[in-house]
């Protein structure tokens, strides 16, 4: 598929360097899948979908491309193609999933939480960041919590400097939940170090675990090999990979919804 110009219909400021852009477009996609966003004759970058209908992207200004996107206004266009890759698959038999987002890794989790809540699951979301200023989407999760049955969504916040929520990292919030047997599945998105730690703690408890791995997607269609991780091409096999289970081989999630 070729890049399609999509008009920005709303922009929300999330923190000092992150904005959420809503487009006049919809896609058939699953949480965890990604799109490529193109500024003609400048660059094209991968972004996890925050929502597919309407297409919504969280974009943190960390480089020239994302700073240019931050200058776009409502009515401006960004060229999108996708959705690519394999996303999370929520298993209805999991009644108490934990969703773990580190930094801007929370992007795909809001949508996933909504899907799991709609299935009647009791969801715990753990959102972590370095400081309170870096936290993302807490207010959005709170709005989702307000609109579902009381107690269905529990939000836990961690900051490394302790400026909000539990001092420490997401793992410090996740590990006791797992030890107390309050979780029957783990879904995570964030930096590689965090995901490796989450996988390890989930595996020790024999819990199913799906992680969305960040990578620089070059071809985005599985052929160039630039995004290889553990023998997988993340743009096609992933970005969501199911953790290797002690009894079987690693496998990616089923086809997108």
């Amino acid at each position, binding site marked *: *598929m*070729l*890049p399609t*110009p999509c008009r920005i219909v709303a922009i929300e400021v999330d923190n000092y360097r992150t904005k959420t852009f809503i487009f006049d477009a919809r896609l058939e996609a699953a949480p965890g899948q990604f799109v*490529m966003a*193109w500024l*003609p*004759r400048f*660059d*094209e*970058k991968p972004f996890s979908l925050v929502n597919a209908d309407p297409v919504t992207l969280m974009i943190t200004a960390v480089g020239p491309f994302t700073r240019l996107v931050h200058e776009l206004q409502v009515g401006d*266009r960004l*060229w999108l*193609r996708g959705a690519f890759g394999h996303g999370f698959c929520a298993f209805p038999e999991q009644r108490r999933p934990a969703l773990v987002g580190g930094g801007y890794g929370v992007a795909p989790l809001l949508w996933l939480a909504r899907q799991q809540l709609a299935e009647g699951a009791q969801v715990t979301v753990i959102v972590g960041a370095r400081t309170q200023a870096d936290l993302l989407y807490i207010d959005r999760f709170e709005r989702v919590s307000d609109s579902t049955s009381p107690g269905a969504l529990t939000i836990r916040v961690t900051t490394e400097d302790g400026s909000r929520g539990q001092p420490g990292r997401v793992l410090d919030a996740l590990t006791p939940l797992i030890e107390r047997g309050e979780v029957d599945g783990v879904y995570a998105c964030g930096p590689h170090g965090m995901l490796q730690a989450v996988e390890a703690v989930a595996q020790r408890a024999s819990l199913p675990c799906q992680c969305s791995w960040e990578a620089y997607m*070059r*071809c*985005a*269609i*599985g*052929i*160039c*090999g*630039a995004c*290889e991780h*553990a*023998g997988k*091409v993340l743009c*096609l*096999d992933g970005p969501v990979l199911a953790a290797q289970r002690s009894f079987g081989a690693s496998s990616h999630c089923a086809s997108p919804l």
Partner: protein
Amino acid sequence: MAELSTRFLDLTLPTPLVLASGIWGTTVSLLVRAAEEGCGAVTAKSCGPTPRAGHVNPSCLDWGHGLINAIGLANPGAQAEVELLRAAKAKLRPMGVALIASIFAGPPEEFGEVAAIVAQAAPDFIEVNISCPNVHSEFGEPYAGDPDAAAEVTGRVKDAVREAGIAVIVKLAPNVPSIGRIVRAVVAAGADALCVINTMPGMVIDAESGQPILANRSGGLSGPALKPIALKCVYDARKACPETPIIGTGGVTSGVDAVEMLMAGATVVGVGSAIYYRGPSAISLICAELAAWLDAHHIARVEEIQNCAHRERIYSVAPTGAPIPLAH
């Protein structure tokens, strides 16, 4: 079940499928994965004299009838490639799968230098990408477009690896007036085998922005659109040099595509864009389809269909060539 093992140069490959260069060849684990999927040989990503970051994105697109890419020869440089090739070779050897190193360079003498470095890893074969621009040509035409330039590069590589005893495969470009002429030139210069063909130059423009989509503006076409072009080039190359082994590459996404490529004159069949069109299991799907086709046609060995298109069907009468009159 039909026998898929195929003689290629001095090796017998377990299957006639070859992972094309630029596809998955960036890491040892992906090369091994392609071998496990059913490749008889795998080609590592092309490397040049020094590391290259490649072009920015977009670098690869599905434009409707095929893919177009301009990755920009991203590679870690020949020296770093040696380590990857060594590690890959160690894992591939027990599987009986051949490792093809792929190289490119600037001036002709540099091809020899890169080949000599890569030869340290003792890959089974070295493939030479001669579609890069001839630095001595005013318009930067690819070496692949000129018989003398193509032969010079071939000779430089042969000289560099003769002592190591590694066979050289020259990868040809489709956009030449007579591929047969290039084939003759590189074989005369010592090419042990050919890879036919590289991608076809092209461009895709986004009407809404009025701009080429690829960051490099133009790129190479692959996938289904390339198949008829590749079949013709392989056919012509086979005619020009009946004895030279050929890796027929271009738009093969199914077992029947592979059958056609072998019939056109390929010895073995390159697979690349198919991984996009058929998914990560493309190679095993194509292998299974190839075997099933041979079984359905009661053909015991895949080698029996090689060059089939060059053996013309004979009828006892000649066609008149006259149009058939309408019956009134």
